[in-house]
C-alpha cells in the first residue's frame, strides 16, 4: 500500500466520522438545544450604612466593596420558559462612627440561587423579557468592632427562601448591542442567627448555645437586593455597568440590625457555550440564550 492510498483511506475515514458526527449533532439538536451561559465577574464600590445595637447604639457609615460572579443559563427542562441564576459574592464594609474615631469592619459572603419563569414580551423595537420565580440565599460573615470588649464581634448568618424577578430589555445603542436589566431578590422566610440581648460569646463558648437560631419572616427580618445593569456587547465580550442596592434589617431579642449598601458595579464577562462531544453543532444550531 502506498502513502497515497493511506492518505485516501484516512480522508475517507475522517469524512465518515465527520458525517456520523454531523448526523449525531443534528439528532441532538432536535432534542437538546444549546444553552449558552451568561457569566459575569463584577466588582463594586459604594457606600455602606450599618447599625448593630449588639455592638453600638450608633449608626456607622463608610465604604462598601464587593466582588461577585453571576451565572445565568436556560434550564435543561423547558429552556424557552425557565432560567436559573447563581450568584456568588463577597463584600467588605469599612465604616466609622459619627465622631469618626472608631472603625468597624464587616466581611460577608453570599450564595444566591434562583429559578425563574420567563415571559417574552414583544416590544416595538426589541426583545423584552420578564422573569419571576423563587430564590434561596445563604449569607454569612461577621462585623468586627475592635475597640469593644466582650462584644467585639457580631456574627451574621442567614438562610432564606423568597421571590426573585428580572426584567431584561435587549436593544441597540447606535450599532452597539445593549442589554438593560433589573434584578430583584426578596427573601420572604428563613432562618437567621442572633444572640440574645446581652448574651456574650463566652457564654456560648461554655455551652449555652440554645435560642441562637430564629425563624425569619417579614415580622422580624426584611431583606431586599436590587441590581440595575447595562451590558454593553463589545464583540464576544460583555462590559457591565450597573448599580446595586442591598438592604437588610432584623429586629429580634430587642437587638436592631440594619445594613444598607449602594454601589456602582463594573463587570466583565460574556455568553459562553460549552461544546463537548455531546454538543457537536450544526451550521445553524438551535440556541436558547438566558437573557441576551
Amino acid at each position, binding site marked *: 500500500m502506498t502513502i497515497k492510498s493511506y492518505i485516501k483511506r484516512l480522508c475517507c475515514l475522517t469524512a465518515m466520522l465527520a458525517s456520523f458526527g454531523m448526523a449525531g449533532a443534528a439528532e441532538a439538536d432536535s432534542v437538546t438545544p444549546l444553552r449558552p451561559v451568561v457569566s459575569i465577574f463584577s466588582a463594586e464600590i459604594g457606600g455602606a450604612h450599618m447599625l448593630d445595637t449588639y455592638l453600638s447604639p450608633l449608626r456607622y457609615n463608610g465604604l462598601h466593596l464587593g466582588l461577585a460572579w453571576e451565572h445565568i443559563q436556560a434550564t435543561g427542562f423547558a429552556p424557552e420558559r425557565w432560567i436559573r441564576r447563581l450568584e456568588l459574592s463577597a463584600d467588605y464594609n469599612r465604616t466609622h462612627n459619627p465622631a469618626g474615631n472608631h472603625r468597624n469592619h464587616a466581611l460577608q459572603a453570599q450564595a444566591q440561587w434562583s429559578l425563574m419563569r420567563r415571559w417574552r414580551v414583544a416590544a416595538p423595537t426589541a426583545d423584552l423579557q420578564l422573569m419571576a420565580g423563587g430564590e434561596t440565599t445563604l449569607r454569612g460573615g461577621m462585623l468586627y468592632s475592635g475597640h469593644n470588649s*466582650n462584644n467585639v464581634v457580631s456574627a451574621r448568618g442567614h438562610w432564606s427562601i423568597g421571590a426573585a424577578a428580572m426584567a431584561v430589555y435587549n436593544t441597540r445603542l447606535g450599532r452597539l448591542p445593549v442589554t438593560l436589566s433589573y434584578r430583584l431578590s426578596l427573601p420572604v422566610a428563613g432562618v437567621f442567627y442572633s444572640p440574645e440581648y446581652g448574651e456574650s460569646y463566652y457564654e456560648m463558648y461554655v455551652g449555652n448555645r440554645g435560642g441562637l437560631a430564629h425563624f425569619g419572616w417579614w*415580622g422580624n427580618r426584611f431583606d431586599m437586593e436590587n441590581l440595575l445593569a447595562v451590558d454593553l456587547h463589545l464583540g464576544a465580550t460583555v462590559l457591565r455597568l450597573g448599580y446595586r442596592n442591598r438592604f437588610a*434589617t432584623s429586629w429580634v431579642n430587642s437587638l436592631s440590625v440594619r445594613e444598607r449598601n449602594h454601589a456602582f458595579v463594573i463587570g466583565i464577562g460574556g455568553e459562553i457555550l460549552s461544546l463537548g462531544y455531546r454538543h457537536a453543532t450544526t451550521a445553524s444550531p438551535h440556541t436558547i440564550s438566558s437573557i441576551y
Partner: protein
Amino acid sequence: MTKLFNYIYITATMLALAACHDEPQWDNTAAGNLDALWTIIDEHYCFLDQKGVDWDAAKGKYMAKIKETAGEKGKISQIELFDILAEMLRELDDGHVNLISNFDASRDWVWEEYPENYNERLVNENYLHFDYRRTSGMKYQVIDEGKVGYLRYGSFSSGIGEGNLDAVISYFKDTEGLIIDVRSNGGGYLTNVETLVARFITERLHAGAISHKTGKGHADFSKPYDYYFEPASGRVMYTDKPIIVLANRGSFSATNTFVSIMKSLPQVTVVGDTTGGGCGLPFTAELPIGWSVRFSSAPIYDSDGNLTEWGVDPDIKIDMNNDDIAAGRDPILEKAIELIINYKLN
C-alpha cells in the same frame, strides 16, 4: 381579586415595616451625650437592682450639673463634660465601668483605696533572689530549698500555652506544695482561667453559672447557665498537693473568678486580702462624641450561686504594712510557705 392583592400588599408592607425597627440617635451635645450614656447603662448594665442604684434620679441630677456648669455662657468644655459623666458612672460603684476618651479613662477602682499587699520588687529580691524562669506571662521558681513552688501570673490577658504550662508544672514535680500569686492581677480572658484551673482538678468541676440580660428592663435576665471545667487530661497535672492562692484587692475581674473557683477546691487555701470583685462580664458601647463606655453586662455567679461582685474573702486574711516592706518581708507569701511546710506535718 384586586381586593385580595391590596390586602396582601398592605399586610406585607406592615410586616416589613415592623422589621424596620429604628433606634434613637442622640445629638452630639452635652445633654445628648449624657442622655446616651444614661440610656446605655439603663438598658444594658446588669447590677442596677443588686446595687440599689436610683438610676432614674441620676439622670436629673447630672443633667442639672451640666446646666449649672454651662451657666450663662451656655457652653461646657469636653473635660467638664467628661468629669460630670464620669461622676455619674461612679454611682454604679463598679471597677468594670469606665468612660474612655482620648484624654482620660474614668474608673472606680476600689483596690486603690486599700493596702496594696503586694510588692513585686520585694518578692523578686528577697524570695526569688532575681533568679526565676518566665514563660506565657508566668514567672516561676522553686523556693525554700526546693520544697515550695512559686508561680506568679500577673495578667489573665497573657495567653497560656498548654505546652508552656506542662513545662511549668513539671518544674514543680518535687515540691511539697504550690503558691499561685495572683495579687494585683487585674484580670483578662476567662478562657485562661479555665486553662489554669484544669491542671488542678481530677474530675469535672462545677465552676459557676453565667446569665445575661434578655431585654432592656432592669430585671430582664436569663436563667443562670451552669458551666463546668474539665480536667486537662493527658497533660501534666498538680492535683495531690496543697495549693495556696495569694490574692489582694487588685485581684479583679477574671482573677476574681479564678480565686472564687480555686477556693472551691479542697486542696486550696486563699491567703491575703479580699479580691477586688468584678463578676460582671463587660461589654462596650459608645457616645455620639466618640467616647467609649465599658460596663458590666452579664453576671457570673460562683458555684454556690452567689455574685462575687464585691470580692471573694480569703481563708486567711493578712495585710502587708509599711514596716513589713521596710524589713523586706512579705507576710502573705511567708504565711503561704508556712502553710505548705506545715501541711505535710499535719
